[in-house]
């Protein structure tokens, strides 16, 4: 299990193969990977750049918790998460999640679990620069219907 949060741009496939080289060979039947990349549009706006803030320490801790939950739920061999922060350009990879397992069903389930709960719980915040030059905080991940419910539970003060 490895979690990396970094400012440097990264090549998902290099990150994946570098980590794979550390695994015991011949045991994994397969791997399932998710790569999230920055789109050049969001909520109807053209986006020229983005800054991704995070909460150093809490972010890594919660991604590790999510990976550990996945390892507890499914029989997997290993997992890797790499997540960018800082200044990001359209088409840059933002996040890589890889799960290795002997049987593919476990890898699919675990990979999907990790990216879903990472997006729901890991403290990252996107601030987009539109092509008109305006900066705006992205207020929600539009794809995630589960987020509103989770937020309601955690709502505070």
């Amino acid at each position, binding site marked *: 299990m490895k979690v990396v949060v970094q400012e440097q741009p990264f090549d998902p496939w290099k990150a994946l193969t570098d980590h794979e080289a550390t695994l015991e060979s011949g045991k994994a039947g397969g791997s399932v990977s998710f790569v999230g990349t920055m789109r050049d549009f969001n909520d109807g706006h053209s986006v020229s750049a983005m800054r991704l803030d995070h*909460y150093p320490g*809490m972010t890594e801790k*919660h991604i590790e918790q999510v990976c550990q939950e996945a390892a507890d739920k499914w029989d997997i061999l290993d997992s890797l998460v790499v997540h960018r922060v800082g200044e990001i350009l359209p088409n840059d990879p*933002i996040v890589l999640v890889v799960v290795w397992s002997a049987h593919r069903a476990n890898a699919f389930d675990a990979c999907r679990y990790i990216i879903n709960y990472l997006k729901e719980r890991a403290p990252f915040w996107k601030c987009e620069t539109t092509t008109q030059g305006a900066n705006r905080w992205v207020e929600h991940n539009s794809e995630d219907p589960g987020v509103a419910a989770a937020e309601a539970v955690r*709502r505070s*003060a």
Partner: protein
Amino acid sequence: MAINVKYFASMRDRMGRGEDAVTLEGESMTVADVWKKVSNGESLPGSTLVAVNMEYTDGDSVVKDGDEIAFFPPVTGG
């Protein structure tokens, strides 16, 4: 007791600062009490998330000396 309070993303913009070092008097202060103190009595936006020592919690959580409290909007990573 002394606690550290952090603000992230739009909450940081709203507060105009990234953190506060806060000294509290008395016992059984909650996260909601801390918010009142740092915000001069403003109400907390309904969607705000709260963490104490990097774990999610809510406004009723009681704070201890040395705690790190964080206020931030819904997360949008991945």
